[in-house]
């Protein structure tokens, strides 16, 4: 299996843990990731603030690049990038004028001709690679770890083929396969407010707090997630959340790839587990 890898802007310095653990784990599983050359920002939630066609054309440039570089599938770990690229690929496939607008906005020589499939690494592991295969390679099961999976918003919404939009279970299935005890809680697919982190940090703090409190009350010892923006909110903004809720949380928040890495026997440092804001020393 060989995929184009679109890390997205957040996986640079800010959420490097995800990039490190993602590459390490996929290498360990034998899945080839080739970073897309010259990829551009997907636009996050601002892609269309100045030009409405930016909604699909800004992420769409990356699809054209993937095609030009000989790939059929792009995987991207960030939920927002995933949502943007996947929705762009769907819009362009369904709508001839969208494809034309995209191609018109691209540089000379670059053109999107066909359809590029966009997948999230979680569902690549679940559907294409297979849980059974992963389970075989687990050397350090997360025995008894109480893991609350946090899906956030854009991993499962808008509605797609991979998981429920209201009660997703993909990450939970993975955690179960790694030996963890799955903690279910009603905020697992509710918004962290990450989009407003700069302009209205108080809102982010409140929403993030609601998620963490619900996970904690349900008995979670660690929160696993799949989006760097959610991680920034739940990890970096945990202090602000504690302040907003007037309550201590002390909840380690890690990426599902890091937990997967640990279960596969990889080193903490290699997975970036010492880079979080909230201490992950209990995650071992």
């Amino acid at each position, binding site marked *: 299996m060989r995929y184009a890898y679109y890390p997205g802007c957040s996986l640079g310095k800010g959420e490097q843990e995800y990039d490190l653990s993602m590459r390490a784990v996929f290498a360990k599983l034998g899945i080839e990731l080739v970073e897309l050359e010259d990829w551009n920002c997907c636009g996050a939630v601002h892609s269309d603030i100045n030009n409405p066609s930016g909604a699909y054309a800004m992420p769409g440039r990356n699809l054209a690049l993937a095609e030009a570089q000989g790939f059929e599938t792009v995987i991207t770990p960030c939920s927002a990038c995933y949502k943007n690229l996947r929705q762009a690929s769907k819009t362009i496939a369904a709508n001839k004028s969208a494809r034309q607008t995209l191609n018109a906005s691209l540089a000379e020589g670059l053109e999107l001709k066909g359809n590029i499939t966009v997948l999230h690494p979680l569902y690549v592991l679940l559907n294409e690679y297979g849980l059974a295969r992963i389970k075989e390679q687990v050397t350090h099961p997360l025995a008894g770890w109480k893991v609350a999976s946090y899906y956030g918003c854009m991993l499962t919404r808008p509605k797609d083929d991979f998981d*429920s939009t*209201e*009660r997703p279970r993909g990450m939970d299935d993975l955690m179960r396969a790694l030996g963890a005890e799955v903690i279910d809680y009603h905020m697992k697919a509710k918004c962290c407010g990450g989009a407003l982190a700069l302009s209205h940090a108080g809102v982010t703090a409140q929403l993030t707090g609601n998620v963490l409190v619900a996970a904690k009350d349900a008995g979670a010892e660690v929160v696993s997630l799949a989006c760097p923006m959610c991680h920034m909110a739940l990890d970096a903004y945990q202090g602000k959340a504690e302040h907003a809720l007037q309550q201590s949380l002390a909840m380690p928040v890690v990426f599902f790839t890091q937990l997967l890495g640990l279960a596969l026997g990889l080193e903490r440092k290699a997975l970036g587990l010492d880079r979080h804001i909230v201490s992950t020393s209990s995650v071992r």
Partner: protein
Amino acid sequence: MDDKTNENEPRIGVYVCHCGSNIASVVTPAEVVEYAKDLPGVVISKEHRYMCSDPGQTLIQKDIADYKLDRIVVAACSVAMHEPTFQACIAEAGLNPFMFQMANIREHASWVHSHEKEAATQKAKDIVAGAVAKVTYVTPLQRFEVPVTKRALVIGGGIAGISAALDLADMEVETYMIEKTPTIGGRMAQLDKTFPTMDCSICIEAPKMVDVGKNKHIHLIAYAEVKEVNGYIGNFKVKIERKPRYVLLDRCTGCGLCVEVCPISVPNEFEEGLGPRKAIYVPMAQAVPSIYTIDRDACIECFKCVEACGQLQAIDFAEQSEIIELDVGTIIVATGLDMWDPTEIEEYGFGVYDNVTTMMEIERLHCAGGPTVGEFERPSDRKVPKTLGLIQCVGSRDKRYNEYCSGFCCMYTIKNAMLLKWLYPEMDITIFRIDIRTPGKTYEEFYERAREAGIHFVQGRPAEIREDPVTKNLIVRSDNVNLGRSAEYEFEMVGLSTAAIPSAGSTDLGRVLTVPNDTHGWFLESHPKLKPIDTPTEGIYLAGAAQGPKDIPQSVGQGSGAAGRAARVLSHETWEIDPIVAYVDPERCINATGGKCDLCYRACPYGAVDCRPGSGKATYIVPAKCHGCGTCVAECPQNAITQYHFTDGQILAQMHALLAEKPEEKVLAFTCRWCSGMGADNAGVSHFEYPANTRNLLVMCAGRVDADFVMEAFRLGAGAVLVSGCHPQDCHYIDGRNNAEKRIVRLFGQLEKIGISPNRFRLESVSATEGAKWSRIMRDLSEVVTGMGPEAIKTENETARPHLTKRLQRMAETPGVAEVLHLSESARLAGLKTETEQAMNIAVAQGVQGGQA
């Protein structure tokens, strides 16, 4: 003018109406009369102030006798207006009514070209020429008769089917009722009380059920399904499969000893899974027939039941399913509805949270005959809930699931709330809704009573439900629209008012019956307002929720209505079939020589085509099932299919006449008889003017328009061509417009390739009320033609002509067409007449014998 009576030459009479001043003030009738005199075949040409009046009609009849006319053209108003009038008129005078053609010079000329009198008169001449050309080639047609079997079939034993069957029985019609489940009764039997009267449902239904079981004119076959239906109105051949109960009908007395000893319990479907039944069971106490059934999937074959049955020996594990064949004259479809499963609407937690239930489950829980003997207990702890939340429109009015409103659920939720308030006055009940719909008699008053009883009504559709893990209570989060803010409401139990969906298997049954289902799966009625009981398949009628969600009085009413529609047919010895049907020439059909073509079969929405690709047998079309759209005629790549009264030859003759003079200045518009034709008429009635360089050619359906016709029009030099039909969802023949689209869309690219500017050819949909749209389209196309100018158009046509001629080779060689194209001697015409009459007789014979040619 020719008064020789050569029986092989047409003798056409042309009559130009003034219609008072409606026509005469714009078109000059005298000019048209003069012009018509010189048209080939015209013997007499006259005018009259009011053709449709008695004197006008008498004039025609007298001329038929005096001049031995055999074909008549009346140039007047629309076919929709007076075609039947003149057909009856000439029939009285001894002519076959199909030897007639209407030329619309009012709605299509005088009323829309009042500012171009000369051009309007020229157009009127062309229209008459077209009519004369077509009528030259028409043949006499007989409405043929088929015998009627005086027996009725009712599929479905719910309240609608029961109503229909009892009415038919009262008319002494031998009626067969088929029911899929082991007992009749349907949804109504599951209800506790019925709104708005609050009478006990089974109490009012059971007597009718018993009636059906005992009635000497009704044969009830329960636990059976319809597998195959062949034939047509008056003559349906139905194959029914009766599933084995493993309990013999003629021996079981319903004593129930077997149930007592059966060790297996499974959820009872009748109780929505809330209560048990044994592997050997009757679904409910009042079952009709009161015979047990063994569910072999649950049964462990311990045979204790056999032992208990003892001497009666009513249990037979070796029983096989039985195929029953019936001949019936009419079929009534009364298959009812199911309730939608709300598991999909994940935000409500049905199937995840114990205390989230459906309204039908609630129905069973408070019913004295239900699984908890009328104690309304919530699932998690079997306690009576103190607070209850009911949510409307779950899965209804929802584009993600079922777009429609299910109609009865507002009332039935209010009913459940009222019942519970009576039983448990302290219970706090809230109904969450978007609207409240109370359309029936005393329904609004019922709603008033509910409010008086203290039931809360919150306007707002809940966003999500979550559960308190300890108490198992539900927390419903909803926008309270009236208060303008969101809130959370806690309830011990929640009920979801789910959508009604068509009974499982409706689409499959639709295929078996060749009755179409609409996009949601409900059976499709012929006309939503004027024919809500008929289906496009003659002789098959709809009753009850099978046609669309409805309540009990509506179902009963429609059941009786269906019985009436069926009786219409069954009270006759024979039934007349309209002859404008399609016919396959067995010598030209490619399947006759081992071909594997089924294009006509696929195009027909009525299942009128019996097609055996690869069998060596030619395809044939059952006349009684054919509705005369002509789509198959246009689809056939061998040009093997003809449509009586709209043959290729007749249409082409009309087209040639219309485009004879200065075709490059004209717009030729094919319109369907229904929406577009009436839309064009509507433009006339409303006097929406448009230029006079436009010519209409009427066919029954846009589906009839062969790609060849369009190409021939351009080959003849037309300036622009339009094909216009109903809007696809309104097509009078269901799929005709869609088929036209698929076929004609290909032409766009092809024509452009051979040099015809794309704006010279259009495909449109115009409804009967869209006169303004029609007028606008005509204006647009007319401007395209005048804008380009005759020279430019001629040049494009010249370039295209050789390509078109080549492609039209096959059409040119088709019998019936060749004559027209070469304007042959009338001697050939006589031969043609005999051929088609013979063909008609063969078709009828084939149809009656059920397809063995």
